[in-house]
């Protein structure tokens, strides 16, 4: 059962992303949306959390939420794939279940 985990809080504000990653099993995906997109930025104290987990988990970030916050695509951690709303829908459809981490 491959699950999609969505995270909508900044990793510097809550431990939501950390907990989602900890509870995601190999082959799962994590999609960062809303304030969660800050978790996809390079150069933060929490960036390592995402890069370290990349061997087992596929990471995605919602493009429109990056743009809303003025985060340039070039500042996204290497290996995190940027998706738009249709990509979000596709991810949900591709996975067996979606878990929203708030």
């Amino acid at each position: 059962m491959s699950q999609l985990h969505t995270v909508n809080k900044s990793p510097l504000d809550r431990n939501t992303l950390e907990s989602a990653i900890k509870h995601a099993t190999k082959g799962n995906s994590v999609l960062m949306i809303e304030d969660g997109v800050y978790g996809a930025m390079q150069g933060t104290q929490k960036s390592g959390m995402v890069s370290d987990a990349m061997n087992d988990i596929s990471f995605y970030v919602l493009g429109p939420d990056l743009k809303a916050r003025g985060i340039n695509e070039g500042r996204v951690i290497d290996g995190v794939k940027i998706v738009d709303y249709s990509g979000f829908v596709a991810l949900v459809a591709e996975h067996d279940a979606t878990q929203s981490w708030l």
Partner: protein
Amino acid sequence: MSETKKFLYVNRKAPYGTIYALESLEVVLIGAAFEQDVALAFLDDGVYQLTKGQTTDEVGMKNFSPTYRALGDYDVNKIYVEQESLDARGLTLDDLQALTYEDEDDDWAEKDSIKVVSAAEMAEIMEQSDVVLSF
């Protein structure tokens, strides 16, 4: 109201994901009408509120970042941004909008409203405030 009080608005949350950032800004503008001594503090995720390049058309929300540039016109020109919070997020002053005001005591010279301070200095600013409103 004969006595002027030192107001500090503390901002610790990122914009758009929750309503705190916008609400805080609106309260500041409303409060500006009362002519008190107003200062704004941006720390923790609050520093994200001041970043440049916010483009919100794809998320269907109003981009309220230009409103920060109007603060100077409302005599709100003490905007403290915490260094440690910027560092933890990989941000520099360059990532933030340039907020300015015109100093009436200096021939209306345009000056920077943003002052980057350490957490220790921020604590002192908080200590010196009469009224602290947190968002």
